[in-house]
């Protein structure tokens, strides 16, 4: 049969985000495929070298659109490690609430997003409506729905507004009661199951070969490979939560894990609200006005567990007011580039968007 070249994206309803896959197909089967990234390349790593340590807070959330807070967190962690800042206790807990809310919002978006390639638009409608409530909570805490610029080096920018705890709890209880319906709607849906069960496999060897992290890794290896457990940050070591794992990774497993993680996030936030102490929320980064903050020289890497896996920044300071170099490890870089090249071939064309969705790929963080 003749090999035909197909483009999936950048403008394609099945493509979430601005990226393109070049597929060479024979009949329905993908023979070779490559990702064409860079549509969202903005040169962040360069722009950050041109802005002061504080100013970069405006830039970094924009690297990953669905889950910007992880960027803020790793950036802050790096500065704190370099400048040896002791973050106030309360700030740790607030950060954890923010990060988990962000994880919920990203998971909801991805979970609903599965409705696109499977034709189950109800899932998307529900998930977006629930996600909107998280965004409203974010707006109240941080001042904006999507780009929060809230977690800053030394703590958080402002204390939580009064009474927000109850709003969060209300929402969490509501969501918790609705999650079983999502299970019925998506996970137990025969149409979806027909597409996802035993499809798009991710064996453990592949995980190690590519360097896939996050749900992909945990669904294949059966181990609690979660940075929140392995190398805890914020105050994750003090809350009690489980990391869902599995040993057989198909699209259905990965969705199920995502679904189970939402429960864990709800659980963590509830504990955090309960255990959060009072006190200050921000420590000083350096002397003087923000225009003149200097961070001591050094090179450090920090990573957090984003909804898609290990999200890290490598920060180099030469002791000046601006970073000397920041390198971003997007969580989906390995599976997005090498994974598409090596492991998308063999699947059917119509599974390509599904492949993308369940592998957890976010193009802005690949392109940076």
């Amino acid at each position: 049969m003749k090999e035909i070249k197909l483009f999936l994206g950048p403008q394609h309803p099945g493509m979430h985000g601005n990226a393109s896959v070049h597929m060479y197909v024979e009949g329905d089967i993908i023979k070779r495929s490559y990702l064409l990234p860079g549509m969202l390349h903005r040169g962040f790593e360069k722009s950050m070298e041109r802005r002061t340590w504080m100013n970069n807070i405006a830039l970094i959330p924009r690297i990953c659109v669905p889950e910007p807070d992880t960027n803020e967190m790793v950036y802050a962690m790096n500065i704190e490690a370099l400048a040896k800042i002791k973050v106030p206790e309360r700030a740790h807990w607030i950060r954890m609430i923010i990060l988990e809310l962000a994880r919920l919002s990203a998971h909801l978006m991805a979970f609903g997003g599965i409705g696109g390639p499977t034709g189950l638009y109800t899932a998307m409608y529900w998930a977006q409506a629930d996600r909107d409530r998280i965004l409203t909570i974010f707006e109240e805490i941080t001042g904006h729905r999507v780009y929060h610029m809230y977690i800053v080096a030394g703590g958080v920018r402002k204390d939580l507004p009064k009474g927000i705890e109850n709003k969060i709890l209300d929402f969490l209880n509501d969501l918790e009661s609705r999650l079983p319906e999502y299970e019925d709607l998506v996970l137990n849906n025969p149409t979806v199951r027909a597409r996802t069960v035993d499809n798009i496999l991710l064996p453990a060897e592949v995980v190690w070969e590519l360097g896939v992290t996050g749900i992909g890794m945990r669904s294949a290896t059966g181990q609690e490979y979660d940075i929140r457990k392995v190398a805890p940050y914020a105050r994750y070591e003090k809350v009690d939560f489980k990391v869902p794992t599995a040993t057989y990774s198909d699209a259905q497993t990965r969705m199920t894990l995502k679904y189970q993680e939402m429960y864990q996030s709800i659980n963590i936030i509830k504990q955090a609200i309960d255990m959060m102490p009072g006190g200050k929320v921000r420590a000083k980064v350096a002397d003087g006005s923000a225009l003149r903050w200097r961070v001591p020289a050094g090179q450090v890497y920090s990573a957090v567990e984003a909804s898609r896996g290990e999200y890290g920044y490598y920060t180099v300071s030469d002791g000046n007011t601006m970073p000397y170099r920041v390198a971003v490890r997007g969580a989906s870089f390995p599976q997005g580039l090498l994974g598409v090249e090596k492991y998308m071939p063999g699947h059917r064309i119509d599974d390509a968007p599904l492949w993308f969705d369940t592998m957890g790929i976010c193009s802005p963080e690949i392109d940076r």
Partner: protein
Amino acid sequence: MDKKSILAPFKGWKYLFKKPVTVAMDDIFKNPRESQDNYRGFHINDWAKCIGCGTCSEVCPTNAITMVERSDVADEEGSKPERPVIDYGRCCFCALCVDICTSGSLSLTKEYLLNSSDPEDFYYMPTEKGITGKPIKLGYVKDETSDLLDLERKHMEHVGEDERKGSFIEIVRGFSKEQAIAEASRCVACEICTKTCPAHMNIPEYIRSVWNDNLSEGVDYLYKTNPLPSVCGRICTHKCEGACAISQRGDAVAIRWLKRYIVDNVPDDEYEKVVLSQVSKKGDGKVAIVGSGSAGLSAAYYLSTLGYEVDVYERKAQAGGPMRYGAPKYRLPDDITNRDISFIEKLGVKIHTNTDVGKDITMDKLKSTHDAVFIATGYPDTRPLNIPGVDNKDVIMAMPFLADSADFERGSAKMPEIKEKVVVIGSGNVAFDVARTLVRLQNMKYGKSDVMMAALENRQQIPADIEEIEEGTEEGIKFNLACGPQKIVVDEKTGNVKGVEVCECTQLFDENHRFNPQFDFDARQVLEADQVYLAIGQMPDFTYIPDEVQSQMQIERGKIKTNKNGQVAGVPWLFAGGDIIKGMDIINGVANGHDAAIGIDEYLRKNKKKS
């Protein structure tokens, strides 16, 4: 397939009976929903508060804010007539501008609606009204946590009052390197201080030099406009700090101490290299300068960097004027003054001490041997007080006393005659100098002090610096404020002073803010004292100027009228500067000296061309 999954789709029907999640059309279009309390929407700027410092523009990560000069905003002390303009084609709504705003004038509103097909609509100068013109609800405002300025001044070490009140040891210890860099990093480089400083010193630049730990560059900046940085680093009246943008909400940057830090920490040889490198050598001529205070020395320095031959005439034994004979040594040690003057002398300036113009050498002589004359003779005399009994020998004038005391402090004279219980009349900086010097002398002589200050002003009106009041109080000075001296009480038998009779001063300024003291003559009391010191102000002495020259000059209330470069109106070869044209202030003198040097240079070059 089980039964559950068949029925599953119908479960969704229960939402028919629940409150819809959809936002109503009216809530989107007619009355758009209000944002949450913290929302970062469009800007508003309270013009009454805004000082145009431009820090918002400096911090903006998107370069969205430009400062535009407004013709309808007054150019006042402590502010710039500029206001921010925001380009919503850049702004990313991060609110860093709000967090760093020095005056707290900038805030964000809850507004979020702005659509247009005209890009010009997105370029906007925020006012109190907001971009849409609708009633405004504040969104994001800064709080203590989000503030990006450092409002607290770094602690400066002082000598404790017990140690200092018995000696003339310098009180302020000076910044360490860490402290200086930390203090320098508080500056936002708005340049409002530069505008306010009479000498227009490059303050943000030399603070940046401190911050970058490049002190010889700092010295270079200092000498561009001030050849007496060591002295000014200690006793300048620091108007700059009053104008500092940080002082809008916090402590001003310690500009004076940072200047002092630079000069104290640059080694002499490096210092000399910088100072001498400023010489440009092109002028040709000879200039006489009368008086070696700040104005005279400043003019001398800049004239000699321009290549002129300069003679400075000083009637006292040492050059420096009030730096030498006014400022007490606990504020300005002698070697500091020596240091500044020695660099000026290294440029070739000749200082003739013990030469009283008018007596030892006449003005006419000076005029004939020099191409121009610069007079900066200051306010050497104390203003007299016309009340009964002031001619007593125990009523002592401030300026001669300070000069005598200065000579004593440097070991070239005996201690002035002081008694155990004294009253100082006046509350300016000079009065405090007198009082605090007296505290020290009394402690040295009697082991205790009893100094009372009496002044017309009440505590809020005291013109002296706040540190003087605080430190003076710490040293044990007592105050009797808001009182007007009526007479000196003298013991008729011995002729000794017994005290000062004062009555209450009920009002100092009238409704028009003019000086117009009112007294309650019934509320009288006598402040007991063995000696009374008068420090109610100074005045000039123009007797050395020949009458025919004086008749061509215009002198009003002790000030000579000049053009902006110090050229005396009516007498083109004569230039004046310092206290006698501007009023008492060391930094005014420095500025006048610099201006006069420029004026004299212009005048001489014009003359050269003619001849």
